[in-house]
């Protein structure tokens, strides 16, 4: 073999920087003993904000830490990533960047009908980190002057205009277009605000004329070509590009970092969607990905060939945590607390956390409060994904694996507490496993998937994910205390256990190491996914918590009585090891 051939066949190494709004993490992937492994990772503060105002510093700080930990030189004397990898194992072959540190795309939605075109436009908007700052629709009572004033006040990054089904001709859409044109003209600033039009295709020409030459207009296929069809892909693709141009590329210092590698920066949520779809392919079934981030909540419903991404940039456990009060009252958060807490204390906590988004709970009471808020936040965010837009019906998605990530979960000490939050918030049904991204690796793997599937698969095989356990949720109704499910567990060690789970209760069964064969026999009125009363036998392995049977019923009902409710919440926490 010649030297050239050796170079060509040498497996390549990867350094991925994941810049979140509060933390920057760098991860090094390379081959050890013939297989790809995560070699190391380091985390520091993100430095896109004052006083640093340069994303580079946080990344280089983290890389220096990683170098100290691994003993591998990764930066040159000028502070750039050394590429490609040298024979003496300094540097790396590829540098990649995953970003969620940019602020959300401030967008004004303009459309005719709240239930039709604006609903679809909103779904498009939720595929990127975007914030809906205002909405103009036929139900808007404001005058044109007031709407123009609103455009001037909000100074949006984008105006997304939609409405009408293809073929119709609605003068009202043109009136909105004139208002938008006027508002954009009135905005002073270095850059003209672009307009995205994805409405009635018959009116494209008139819309283009109304906008005139001074306005940057992007035209895409109608998001609602007919009342019964929805086409989000084209507009979603364009809004993704606009987010890259208007937000990610504007991050201070980004141009330096981009010169270290050949890959464009990838939004974290996109990377998470990619890797969730990977899991769906490995599982040969649906996977639900949940990220409870500092500045957003991301949900990915993935099958083998598709990933449906929903990003809620108005929610999150950091600066935007106070927005939860737009959807729920403090008392509804308090419902999840095992101890007494006043509305005032909840409000103070939310506002304080928004000022210090990077902080973590140090007292058990604050941890419980963060979890109570997380429950409501995930519940609100999941309403978007659970809605079947055609029928408007809420339908829980069946999935085989629930993938979770985010600082709140990473800073939760007991795995049962995490599962408890997820079950209360999402109220899933069926049989599924729960895995957690404890090391914050998934977006990096999503980026890595662009270049090396082998590296992704081999890294995942190294048990890098925390297997929290398995969950069975029988669906049905009975009197409290009546049997909902019979469970029989046989371990590889030939030991066995069996027992009944009563309706209204939450039970945890320990699974011994290795594989266990679990037979689930629901009562006549209960269904675990195979029909009422139909039993099934599944093979499960381990998990930190074991097998959780949630027979509390759907939808979950909390007692109205405060004392009874707190007692029940305390009992559930105790059952889950919290």
């Amino acid at each position, binding site marked *: 073999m010649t030297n050239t051939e050796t170079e060509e066949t040498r497996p390549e190494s990867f350094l991925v920087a994941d810049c979140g709004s509060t933390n920057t993490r760098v991860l090094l992937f390379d081959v050890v003993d013939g297989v790809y492994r995560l070699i190391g990772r380091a985390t*520091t503060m993100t430095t896109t*904000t*004052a*006083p640093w105002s340069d994303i580079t510093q946080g990344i280089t700080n983290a890389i220096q830490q990683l170098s100290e930990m691994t003993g591998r030189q990764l930066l040159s004397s000028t502070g750039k990533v050394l590429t490609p990898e040298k024979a003496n194992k300094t540097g790396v072959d590829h540098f990649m960047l995953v970003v969620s540190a940019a602020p959300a795309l401030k967008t004004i939605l303009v459309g005719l009908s709240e239930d039709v075109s604006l609903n679809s436009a909103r779904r498009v908007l939720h595929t990127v980190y975007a914030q809906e700052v205002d909405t103009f629709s036929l139900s808007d009572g404001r005058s044109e002057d007031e709407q123009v004033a609103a455009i001037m006040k909000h100074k949006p990054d984008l105006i997304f205009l939609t409405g009408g089904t293809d073929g119709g001709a609605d003068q009202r859409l043109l009136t909105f277009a004139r208002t938008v044109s*006027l508002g954009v003209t009135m905005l002073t600033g270095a850059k003209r605000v672009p307009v995205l039009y994805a409405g009635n295709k018959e009116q494209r020409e008139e819309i283009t004329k109304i906008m005139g030459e001074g306005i940057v207009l992007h035209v895409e296929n109608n998001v609602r070509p007919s009342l019964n069809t929805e086409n989000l892909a084209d507009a979603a693709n364009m809004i993704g590009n606009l987010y890259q141009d208007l937000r990610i590329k504007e991050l201070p210092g980004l141009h330096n970092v981009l010169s270290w590698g050949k890959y464009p920066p990838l939004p974290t949520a996109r990377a998470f969607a990619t890797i969730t779809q990977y899991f769906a392919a490995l599982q040969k079934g649906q996977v639900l990905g949940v990220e409870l981030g500092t500045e957003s909540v991301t949900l990915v419903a993935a099958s083998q060939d598709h990933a449906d991404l929903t990003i809620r940039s108005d929610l999150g456990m950091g600066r935007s945590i106070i927005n939860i009060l737009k959807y729920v009252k403090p008392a509804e958060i308090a419902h999840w607390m095992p101890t007494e807490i006043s509305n*005032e204390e909840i409000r103070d906590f939310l506002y304080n956390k928004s*000022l210090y988004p990077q902080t973590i709970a140090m007292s*058990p*009471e*604050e941890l419980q409060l963060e979890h109570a808020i997380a429950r409501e936040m995930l519940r609100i965010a999941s309403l978007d994904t659970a809605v079947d837009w055609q029928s408007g019906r809420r339908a829980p998605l069946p999935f085989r694996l629930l993938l979770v990530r985010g600082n709140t979960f990473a800073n939760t000490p007991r795995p049962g507490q995490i599962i408890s939050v997820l079950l209360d918030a999402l109220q899933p049904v069926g049989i599924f496993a729960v895995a957690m991204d404890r090391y914050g690796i998934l977006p990096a793997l999503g980026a890595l998937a662009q270049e090396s599937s082998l590296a992704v698969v081999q890294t995942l095989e190294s048990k890098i994910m925390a297997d929290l356990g398995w969950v069975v949720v029988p669906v049905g109704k009975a009197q409290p205390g009546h049997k909902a499910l019979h469970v029989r567990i046989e371990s590889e060690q030939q030991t066995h256990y069996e027992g009944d789970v009563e309706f209204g209760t939450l039970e945890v069964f320990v699974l011994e190491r290795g594989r266990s064969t679990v037979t689930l026999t629901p009562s006549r009125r209960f269904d675990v996914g195979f029909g009422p009363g139909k039993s099934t036998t599944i093979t499960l392995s381990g998990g930190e918590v074991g097998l959780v049977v949630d027979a509390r019923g759907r939808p979950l009902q909390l007692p109205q009585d405060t004392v009874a409710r707190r007692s029940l919440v305390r009992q559930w926490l105790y059952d889950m090891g919290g």
Partner: protein
Amino acid sequence: MTIYTYTTIIQSQTRLRRERLLPQRGEVIVSPGQEVQPVQVVARTQQATRFRIVPASELWGISPDEVSKHMVVSMGQEVQAGEPLLHRKRALGKQVLESPVEGTFYGLNNGRIILQQHEWFELRALVRARVVNAIPNRGIVLEVIGTQIQGVWGNGKESNGKLKIISDAESEQLTQEQIKEEIEGNVAVVAVLSQPELLTSLQRAGASGLIVGSISAESLPWAQKAPFPIIVTDGIGKQGMARHIFFLIRKHAEGDVALFAREPDYWGNRPELIIPHEISTGMLQSPPEYQPLAAEQMVRILRAPYTGQTGQVVRLNHYRKRTETGIVAYGADVKLADGTVVFVPYANLDTII
């Protein structure tokens, strides 16, 4: 391991430079080298406050393209109410479309005439300082010697006045009885404000500003609407003002203060207060530098059970430790004012520089 944490500037004796900029192009009326007083106007501009849309094509029943043919004013031209905007000859004389308001002709959009109305905006120095630079048409750079304290929340307003210390202790809650006549024209310094109605009382008493350690979430909407600037130094709730900040401000009681209560934004810009005072050159601190956390560094703790307490870093732990909740995290051992040493995750530390 190099650790950076959230950082707050609290400098008792410093020399700092601050830009005072107009929101848009205008006229700078002071020069470099000049000493300025707080109330002195340093720059001014005419700011667009309102606009008026005149639907010309609709009113005359002509196409939008035709409107420009009849325009008798040009872009940027000032017009008086009643002055002609459009003019055309008719068979029986002429037709004129008059301006309904006084303003500036801003532009034409789809056959509609846009008129802008203006008001003078005057930018004041707010602080006794020396002009060290003038930025043509935009503003100036001031150099101030004194005390600088960054806050965590502001209501977007700015003003100046004399420091009137109301609270006797760093955790004392403001009461109605403490709001007296002598607050008029002064900046009230309060440890804790829990009741929103006390903001109305402060307004009635004529306060020109408020510096508060912590404020209740319930009071924030009122604080947002208050006509005077409000700077929160520590947080939301009842934790009060960090001892270090409280004593530093109290040292300058009755002295001048400038409040720049900008709202905290995504990019990390924060509100600050500046207390100008004389300092002998030898006592001046060097400008603060953002450096990695180190032993002996003063820090403020941001989460319960030590919220708002300041202390000194005893050591940085290079291994993870378990907190009361069971979370294992990297952090520092911090010596509190009462001498106890506690472990605090780095994420919950605010480095004071």
